[in-house]
């Protein structure tokens, strides 16, 4: 007995040998090898485009590798589809959840199971409730997914893997959407799973999490394994260095500023949601001061999108006296009218809202810069091109030239372009959503510096981000949104991560202080 147990531990759960995957114009995985033992929590690190996603999709059978072998429990296997992967005992929690909102939790889980598995389980709802208790995952099988918070949805995804008695669990940036409290809950679950012998492959950008929970780490850069390490013996800074090479300039923190005069103000902004899965805004009050960055934290889907849409004017409902710009009421102005006054906007969605995918960078520049480059109704193409080129060289945007289509740029480069374009208008107010989401360390640094420069020139900036570290780094004052309410706004020096985390979870919401008409709504 002891002998077999020992033997079992000597055989890796999964071994990837020389996996290579070539996409047109990009070698996504170049001879990648990786070994995972049972019960090991292994981090897969790398900047965007380093090949992490391709590698896990290969393991999960979504992507077929060009060459290389996968050895599962000591046997060579070919994983041609996700259902084969699941039969082996591989489960995956996607970064963008693969849940169906109009179905219930147990229907969502049922869809992933084969008939055989379903018969073996019997009463699925009962099984879900049992597993919920066993692992401390609070999931109600009968609720509809659209009524669940992001954290709850992630628990459903994990539950989906648990129901199939998973042996290898892959998590793609699982913490990027969670509050700090939810993150520690997730880590508890992962540790319990690992103790029972489940291997975990953990993709993350957040290095302090990796050092906290992972025993091994593999670092990818440009599709190649550049390093492996034991995270517990490293610091976040040393791991960051391995990820980006020698370029890593770890941000040492920036000086905080106090704004001068109020440029923009929102007063008792209350707005019902426009669609069933949206969030209603409830009595939101804040002001933006010149030369200051106001940071708003919050887990996705708590009203950020709705807030950005109404401030930018994209949501064209008239909120007349609730929004003021330099003491002028702007609630009835169109998005274009607000831009003319000196408000610029960087939306969360880069392709489709921040830029038109099929248009060149030059043309995309024209979209928000029409004033200077149109004379007598004619576009001044030459000067427009020159300007686009200035943006490209100033922000070191990697592309073929000003004629490149927006969709051909990587996320980070496109974001640098959009930021540059908006900052280039010398806005008095810049509204900016998730500026470095999915952007690699180098580009994030450039974007941060551009924001701070703009602030120091006297602009008022509203920064909405899910990344708490980023907010603490950049914001001069901060608050959090939860369920459409905005928490009190305090100076960043006086804020703690714990405090903001609790606000993100809604502890500031005092139900008794609601207006009666809101309570009815």
């Amino acid at each position, binding site marked *: 007995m002891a002998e077999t147990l020992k033997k079992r531990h000597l055989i890796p759960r999964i071994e990837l040998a020389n996996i290579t995957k070539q*996409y047109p114009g990009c070698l996504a995985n170049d001879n990648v090898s990786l070994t995972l033992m049972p019960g090991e929590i292994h981090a897969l690190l790398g900047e965007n485009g380093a090949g992490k*996603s*391709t590698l896990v999709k290969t393991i999960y*059978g*979504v992507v077929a590798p060009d060459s290389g072998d996968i050895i599962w429990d000591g046997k060579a296997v070919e994983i041609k*589809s*996700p*259902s084969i992967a*699941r039969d082996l005992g591989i489960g995956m929690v*996607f970064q963008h*959840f*693969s*849940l*169906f*909102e*109009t*179905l219930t939790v147990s*229907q969502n889980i*049922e*869809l*992933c199971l084969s*008939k055989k598995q379903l018969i073996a389980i019997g009463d699925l709802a009962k099984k879900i409730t049992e597993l919920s208790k066993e692992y401390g995952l609070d999931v109600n099988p009968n609720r509809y997914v659209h009524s669940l918070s992001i954290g709850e949805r992630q628990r459903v995804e994990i539950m989906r893997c648990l129901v199939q008695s998973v042996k290898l669990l892959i998590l793609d940036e699982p913490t990027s959407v969670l509050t700090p409290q939810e993150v520690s809950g997730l880590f508890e679950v992962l540790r319990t799973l690992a103790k029972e012998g489940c291997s975990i492959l953990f993709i993350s950008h957040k290095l302090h999490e990796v050092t906290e929970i992972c025993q091994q780490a593999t670092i990818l850069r440009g599709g190649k394994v550049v390093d492996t390490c034991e995270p517990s013996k490293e610091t976040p800074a040393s791991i960051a260095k391995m990820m980006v090479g020698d370029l890593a300039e770890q941000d040492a923190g920036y000086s905080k500023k106090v704004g001068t005069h109020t440029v923009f103000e929102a007063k008792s902004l209350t707005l019902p949601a*426009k*669609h*069933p*899965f949206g969030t209603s805004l409830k009595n939101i009050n804040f002001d933006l001061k010149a030369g200051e960055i106001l940071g708003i934290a919050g887990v996705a889907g708590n009203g950020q999108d709705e807030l950005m849409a109404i401030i930018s004017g994209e949501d064209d409902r008239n909120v007349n006296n609730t929004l003021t710009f330099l003491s002028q009421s702007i609630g009835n102005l169109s998005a274009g009218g607000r831009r003319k006054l000196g408000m610029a906007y960087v939306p969360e969605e880069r392709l489709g809202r921040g830029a038109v995918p099929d248009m060149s960078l030059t043309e995309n520049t024209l979209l928000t810069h029409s004033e200077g480059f149109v004379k007598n109704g004619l576009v001044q193409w030459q000067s427009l091109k020159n300007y686009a080129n200035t943006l490209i060289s100033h922000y070191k945007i990697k592309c073929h030239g000003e004629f490149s289509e927006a969709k051909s740029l990587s996320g980070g480069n496109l974001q640098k372009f959009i930021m540059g374009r908006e900052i280039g208008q010398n806005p008095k107010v810049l509204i900016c959503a998730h500026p470095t989401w999915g952007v690699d360390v180098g580009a994030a640094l450039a974007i941060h510096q551009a924001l701070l420069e703009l602030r120091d020139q006297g602009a008022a900036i509203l920064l909405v981000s899910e990344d708490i570290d980023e907010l603490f780094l950049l914001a001069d004052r901060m608050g959090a949104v939860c369920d459409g309410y905005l928490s009190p706004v305090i100076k960043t020096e006086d804020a703690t991560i714990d405090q903001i985390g609790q606000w993100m979870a809604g502890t500031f919401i005092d139900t008794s202080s609601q207006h009666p008409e809101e309570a009815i709504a």
Partner: protein
Amino acid sequence: MDADLIVLVLFAAIKTGTPLLLIALGEVICEKSGILNLGQEGMMLMGAVVGFIAAYSTGNAGFGVLAAMLMGSFMSLIFGVLVLHLGANQVATGLALTIFGTGLSAFIGSDFVGHTVQGFQPIAIPLLSKIPYLGEILFNHDILVYLSFVLAVIIAYVANKTRIGLVLKAVGENPHAANAIGIKVLRVRYLAIMFGGAMTGLAGSYMSLVYTPMWAENMTAGRGWIALALVVFASWRVGRIMLGAYLFGFASIMHLVLQGLGVDISSNLLAMMPYVATVIVMVIISADQFKEKLLAPRSLGKPFDPRHMA
């Protein structure tokens, strides 16, 4: 208005509503998988003409129905290849299918105009048809009407109670997620499209073999479009589709009834009743965007190609 007339009107409403019901039952399955096929009118005409020719040549109406269903699914297969494999726009392709079907059916049917066939005869169901009033309204029809009752029950059951229904809903809501958990999205959509085509072909053969057992150019007169509206009217629910089909059927024969009663209204005005009803219902439904979005398949009309995923 006496009881006999009411019975007659309701009987006719069911008869008139049946082709709408058949198309809408097929289209709702298609739309649940996320595909909007606007080619109903063209597929229906092709079903009607091919069904008529087959029945006329063989002397067997059953062959006609079979041929019409095959024709309908073949037409929808063309649509499927264009939309699913070649990534064509669903709306444009559907419209093209309608125009194509209208023209082609007129062309191949030109030699058959003016002929008649022996269609299906009404079958009174023993016992049930003896129920006063109800029996005459519901159980004195031809076999295709009974078939539509059975199909409605089966489709409602499959869509709401089985795994197939769950898969269909998943594919229509989020094809990317469905693909990621290993559902073959394209296969599901092909099957749904072809099922829809077969149902529309069946409805076409009902027109040319039962409703008016003859072929005339453009004889479906916009029923394919009304059926499309019916699916939205019913907010993608099978029970409501059945109710709506008969309601629309009733609206279509209203002008005959009122004329019979001697009401002095232009028959042209009354003939547009079902279309007006469609517009009003669409306006009412669209006004409540909240509900519409919860009920509609969320990826309806959006293309999905698994080969283009990174």
